[in-house]
């Protein structure tokens, strides 16, 4: 059995002689081993000339080039003559290339000035806004053409999308809105118990679900479920040149892809929101019955004293607008997607963020608006 012996690593010996620094490299130079750095061999006295010798090197790879490249760069920067004549020809050529590549990188890495950064950012924002306006404009034009009967609607696609974003979303919307009803009931009960008015839990949930939570929860669910799917679908079509293929045939991608999807969402979202209302009320009812001892009939009768069709209408109006927001953001981000896998992923993220942000903003505007007109 061989004795396990630590192989002698790369070594550097330096000898200063009358302004000339002799640097002798020896041993095996391997990237995975420990190799000397040039910086540790620079003495306080600056030599006028550096002579590199590598006669005793038994094996070498890029780690040696790193050392030689740094040495040459240092010499260049300090104005010291660098004598590489003692190196084997291959080593000399490669280390020269190494030093050149480092110099080229150093030039590219120049930091942009503040003004340049601001300018580029402004330009980026302008282009972004222009893209947004262009998209909304195209959507508007194609929609009015459709309404006037100038172009046909792709009914098959629309119905298919309606099934995907509506019927197939029922389980998740059921679960979420039922649980929202349950949590609302519990937190409402904490406050209302103080006044001995547990029965008003039904009013609280009725109003909150119909006016607010039903549409909001359906919209948030669909922005994650459907909006992201739109972005990915359209983004991958773009990556595969399928959108270009539509354009070269003179078929507007907005008419062909965006309108069926947005229409499907605008039609299905109010239905989903009303469905979510029912499930939310049901969740509240279950909590009221099991923990507050309020019978479902009492709950229902009490709720009807305050909730009327107007509240449901408020929820439905919101749902239509939320549907438009989710559909448009998903399709816009898909069409804006970069033509590669990472770009499609970013489009999905961006679609969800955009739609949730716009939904919340729109909801706030609605709150003010409905308050002003007394709805």
């Amino acid at each position, binding site marked *: 059995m061989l004795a396990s012996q630590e192989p002698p690593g790369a070594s550097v010996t330096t000898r200063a002689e009358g302004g000339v620094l002799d640097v002798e490299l020896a041993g095996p130079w391997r990237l995975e081993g420990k190799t000397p750095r040039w910086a540790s061999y620079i003495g306080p006295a600056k030599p006028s000339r550096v002579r590199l010798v590598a006669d005793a090197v038994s094996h070498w790879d890029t780690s040696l080039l790193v050392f030689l490249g740094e040495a040459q760069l240092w010499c260049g920067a300090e104005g010291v003559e660098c004598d590489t004549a003692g190196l084997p020809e291959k080593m000399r050529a490669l280390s020269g290339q190494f030093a050149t590549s480092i110099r080229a990188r150093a030039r590219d890495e120049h930091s942009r000035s503040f003004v340049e950064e601001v300018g580029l950012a402004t330009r980026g924002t302008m282009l972004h806004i222009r893209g947004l306006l262009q998209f909304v404009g195209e959507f508007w034009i194609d929609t009015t053409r459709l309404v006037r009967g100038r172009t046909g609607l792709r009914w098959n696609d629309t119905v298919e999308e309606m099934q995907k974003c509506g019927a197939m979303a029922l389980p998740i919307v059921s679960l979420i809105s039922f649980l929202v009803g349950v949590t609302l009931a519990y937190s409402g009960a904490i406050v209302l118990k103080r006044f001995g008015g547990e029965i008003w839990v039904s009013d609280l949930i009725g109003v909150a679900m119909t006016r607010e939570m039903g549409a909001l929860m359906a919209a948030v669910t669909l922005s994650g479920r459907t909006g992201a799917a739109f972005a990915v679908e359209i983004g991958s079509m773009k990556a595969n*040149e399928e959108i270009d*293929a539509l354009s*070269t045939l*003179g078929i507007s991608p907005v008419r062909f892809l965006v309108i069926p999807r947005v229409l499907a969402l605008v039609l299905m979202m109010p239905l989903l929101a009303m469905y979510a209302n029912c499930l939310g009320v049901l969740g509240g009812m279950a909590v009221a019955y099991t923990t507050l001892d309020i019978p479902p009939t009492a709950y229902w009768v009490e709720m009807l004293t305050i909730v009327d069709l107007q509240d449901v209408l408020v929820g439905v109006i919101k749902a239509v607008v939320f549907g438009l927001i989710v559909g448009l953001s998903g399709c816009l981000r898909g069409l804006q997607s970069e033509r590669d896998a990472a770009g499609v992923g970013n489009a999905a993220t961006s679609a969800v963020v955009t739609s949730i942000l716009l939904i919340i903003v729109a909801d706030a505007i609605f709150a003010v608006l409905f308050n002003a007109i007394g709805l």
Partner: protein
Amino acid sequence: MSTETRPAIEVTDLACSYDEKLVLDGVSFEVRQAEIFFVIGGSGCGKTTLLRNMIGLNNPVRGEVLFNGQSFTHSDARSRRDMLRTFGMLFQSGALWSSLTLGENIALPLEEYTRLPKDEIKSIASFKLAQVGLAGYEEHFPSELSGGMRKRAGLARALALDPGIVFFDEPSASLDPVTARNLDRLILQVRDTFGTTIVVVSHDIDSIFGIADRIVMLDRDKRGIIAEGKPSVVARTSNDPKVVEFLTRRGLGSE
């Protein structure tokens, strides 16, 4: 066959940019009727950018493209749509619509531009597929096909409306040599049967010498054309080392 003397395509003083960088400047050339015209050049020289600017996927910075004497670049949306109807385009990846079957892919342009009844559209789609050797594949989805079959199906779709001009973006890219030659044969056949004008962007030497009537060669540094003419003549007479190296394919072995 057409007795038209006017060139099918005239490109005058075209400047195109890619990612905000000017890649082509002052490019002018003509493509004659029923000609197989190749745009060649090394990677990154702006071949595909030129093609995208010619068919309106990007807007040129300057210059103009005329089809049969009519300006495409400066036309309104309506006449642009009318002109687009007369083009076919085969994209590099085939670009078949992945959610539609092959039959539906070819039927879509016909549904958009004609008032033919459904069963006639279906027959035409089957006929076009048979022409490219894909008879019986109507119900297949693009994802179920090989790369070569997808390109042929893409060609069938490009030919759906019997276009006067067909553009090809690197038709032989990512195809094996035999499949690539079959595609070349199809291109020749299309031209000989219908008198279609054909513009091909390619760097496949065998295709260039095999089927091209005339070529222009683009260069990245010059941002424009460095050679124009019959491929064999250009290869023989050009004294630009870049052109000669590209066309004579002087590999590492011959140095």
